[in-house]
């Protein structure tokens, strides 16, 4: 089908320099993205091992695999590793780092050194946290609720806290870099409304990173002071309030959910538009709904405290605002669906992940209604219903989008194609395994099974049935995640050489060789058309010298 293929350029960002120093001291956003890709994958692997241990333990009502104290450390560390070291950096620091400059036609991020610094900070925090896990672990739950974390826990709370405190700064620096880059380094002609939605989503995410992350830093610092010096801020005996910690913690940690899911929404907007060869339906609504989510996301933290002795009236206000924040997400789902209408939809692996995201994110979002509604939240909070809900958002949402994005941009990143058949197969396995893992947990939660339980009553036969289903699903999910790990690694050496634009797309990142040269573009691109413009009328739409012309529409 191709008239000609561009041979891989002699030098690209991967072979421009060799040696360990050329990687560890690189200022190239693409190489830094790969550093992040490697480290994020490493942390994901550790977090997944913990998840396997949890699922195995819950096969039976008794605690027969581990001690309670060990189990408590396992779920705590699963949460900490997955949230702070995988979900938050996964998409922005890898795909975002690689693509934000490329999509806006820039040579690099605004502050390349700060970008490298952010990776070192992330690794420093990560290594300290890993040290805490190896030294003896931490057992407070990833939420660190006081006074358990300040006074009663005998585990490595402080060390872990230091790790999280440090890592937060990497997120602030990434956010700062993205905002400045998007404001100042867009290519000529790249107006705000010509930005791909991936960029809008990362812009909104960056706002939360900059405004929210300092709050978790302060909170962890107060926790450390309280634990070390007993300053009394969270201790009622000294005039403090343990619930204050929960307010501070969720003031960051609820917006942090949007740090995890907004970039995923950006990826999915790209996947849906590009693999149906359509511009996104209601572009401005999708773009501004990202900003709306970023802003309203700061006003709903209190819905984590409906049963934490917060006042009834505060509960009502937070419930109301939580329903309001659901609307921008609903708008996105409807617009993605409408984008498919009269499109030319391909069934390539990235699109399968994108479509899977729509379904699972819809379920995740809708089940959030149960938790925003006061009456049902009282029954469901701190049960497996919540566990299922946020895994639908974070695994069904963020992880699926991350995998979809990784496959989509893999030819650009690596210069190689992944095996399409295996890709589709594993996408299907992940989808089935995921649903089997987490849908039984909705029922478990409604039945009353509390979260963070090492053992459960043996007379609840239906609970065990549901746990067995969930563990079976997790095994399938594990296989589904292992397959891409193997074939992506395989493709680095044996995959078919990728063309510069294997999907035949108009985005700027595809108008340059794969893998791109260090400076991204051979000459500065000039943007003259709207985003997702597949067939501009009578124009040479791109700008970069070596561009394969799109075939004209057939009908």
């Amino acid at each position, binding site marked *: 089908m191709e008239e000609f293929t561009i041979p891989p350029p002699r030098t690209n960002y991967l072979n421009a320099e060799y040696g360990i120093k050329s990687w560890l001291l690189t200022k190239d956003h693409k190489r830094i993205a790969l550093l992040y890709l490697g480290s994020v994958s490493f942390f994901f692997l550790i977090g997944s091992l913990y998840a396997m241990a949890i699922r195995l333990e819950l096969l039976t009502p008794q605690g027969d695999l581990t001690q309670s104290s060990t189990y408590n450390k396992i779920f705590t560390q699963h949460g900490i590793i997955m949230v702070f070291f995988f979900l938050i950096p996964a998409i922005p620091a890898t795909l975002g780092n690689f693509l934000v400059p490329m999509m806006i036609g820039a040579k690099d991020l605004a502050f390349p050194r700060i970008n490298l610094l952010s990776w070192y900070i992330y690794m420093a925090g990560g290594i300290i946290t890993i040290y805490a896990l190896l030294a003896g672990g931490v057992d407070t739950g990833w939420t660190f609720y006081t006074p358990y974390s300040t006074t009663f826990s005998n585990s490595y709370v402080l060390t872990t806290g230091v790790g999280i405190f440090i890592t937060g700064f990497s997120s602030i620096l990434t956010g700062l870099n993205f905002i400045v880059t998007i404001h100042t380094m867009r290519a000529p002609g790249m107006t705000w409304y010509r930005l791909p939605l991936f960029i809008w989503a990362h812009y909104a995410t960056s706002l939360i990173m900059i405004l929210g992350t300092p709050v978790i830093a302060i909170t962890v610092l107060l926790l450390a002071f309280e634990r070390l010096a007993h300053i009394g801020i969270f201790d009622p*005996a000294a005039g403090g309030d343990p619930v204050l910690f929960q307010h501070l913690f969720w003031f960051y940690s609820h917006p942090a959910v949007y740090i995890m899911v907004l970039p995923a929404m950006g990826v999915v907007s790209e996947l849906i538009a590009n693999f149906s060869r359509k511009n996104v339906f*209601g572009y401005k609504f999708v773009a501004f709904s990202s900003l709306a989510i970023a802003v309203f996301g700061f006003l709903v933290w209190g819905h984590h405290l409906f049963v934490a*002795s917060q006042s009834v009236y505060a509960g009502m206000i937070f419930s109301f605002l939580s329903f*309001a924040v659901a609307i921008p997400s*609903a708008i996105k789902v409807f617009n993605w669906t409408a984008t498919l209408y009269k499109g030319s939809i391909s069934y390539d692996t990235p699109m399968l992940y994108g479509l899977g995201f729509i*379904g699972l994110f819809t379920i995740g979002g809708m089940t959030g209604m149960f938790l925003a509604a*006061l009456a049902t939240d009282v029954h469901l*909070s701190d049960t497996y219903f919540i566990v299922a809900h946020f895994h639908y958002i974070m695994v069904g949402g963020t992880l699926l989008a991350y995998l979809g994005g990784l496959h989509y941009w893999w030819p650009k990143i690596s210069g190689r194609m992944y095996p399409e058949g295996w890709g589709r197969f594993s996408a299907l396995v992940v989808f089935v395994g995921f649903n089997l893992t987490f849908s039984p947990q909705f029922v478990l939660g409604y039945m009353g099974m509390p979260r963070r339980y090492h053992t459960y009553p043996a007379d609840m036969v239906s609970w065990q049935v549901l746990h067995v289903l969930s563990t079976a699903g997790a095994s399938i999910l594990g296989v589904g995640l292992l397959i891409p790990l193997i074939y992506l690694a395989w493709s680095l050496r044996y995959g078919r050489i990728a063309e510069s634009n294997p999907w035949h797309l108009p985005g700027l990142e595809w108008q340059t060789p794969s893998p791109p040269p260090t400076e991204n573009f051979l000459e500065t691109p000039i943007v003259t058309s709207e985003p*997702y413009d597949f067939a501009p009328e009578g124009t040479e739409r791109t700008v970069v010298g070596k561009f394969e012309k799109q075939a004209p529409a*057939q009908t």
Partner: protein
Amino acid sequence: MQSWFPFIPESASTLSGDVDAVYFYVSGVTVFFVTLISLVVIFFVIRYRRRNAFEIPRPIEGSHKLEMLWSVIPLVIAMSIFVWGAKVYFAQYRPPQNALEVYVVGKQWMWKFQHPTGQREINELHVPVGRKVKLIMTTEDVIHDVFIPAFRIKMDVVPGKYTSEWFEATKPGRYHFFCAEYCGMNHSGMRGYIEVMEPKDFDNWLSGNANQMSPAAAGQAMFESLGCVSCHGANAEGGRGPALLGVYGSNVVLSNGPAVKADEGYLRESIINPQAKIVTGFGPIMPSFQGQLTEEQLLGLVAYIKSLSTPKPETPTAKPPATGTPPSANPVQPR
């Protein structure tokens, strides 16, 4: 124990049906929208699959009408859920009148209950069917939570204050309750049973275990032994300190102006941290009892002060444990 369909929890309180109604409404909305979106997506994906590698569809900009439609409809549905959920929640948390008040103290990793008539229980609570029961709860260490799935209620138990929840059981039976706020090593072992009994059986059970001092009586003894009488008066009629007769439930005017309602939390604070809210006309002379009283002793003092305002409960108190066999042995333990 199990209902006809083993994946629906037992529903055994006056409000559990209301919660389920909201639950089923939201479930219906969820199933409807998930099905709708899935079907539309699947239909589009099949109908508009790529048939020709070179086809390029006509771009569609969007539609303000559609955007309005799919913003307003979800908003209206969301608000309906909000209003209904808030209404039921309000009923769940409005403290009932004339409830049987049970004091609950959580500690790592056990639950201690005390009935107003003095009976103590551990990890098990006997209550009568058809009567409102209010749990007044606190903890000696970390945050815990009393979660009774069959009654659809849950409330954190927070150090330094009293929280409460209430229920009226509708069916006799034995229901699980759980600690639902992670509290350390043996968190998942911090669970027990609510034993709901016919009122007659409950009275039998009470009288079979009536050899203990009621919290109010214990509080009165402490009121004397701690020297409270020297300022508040031998009969709590007042002196250098304010009178405590009738103070519970009244509005107390403070020396710095505002008035507060004297509830359990206020009474507790005034013992632990007397300088926080000083009654107008009195000096800041009361010493703090911070660290000198266990949560149970504090609850006793609070119960005594409350008893100075409310008529004594008519439930039997000091009958000898002769009549009938209690349906379940009552564990009496020192801690």
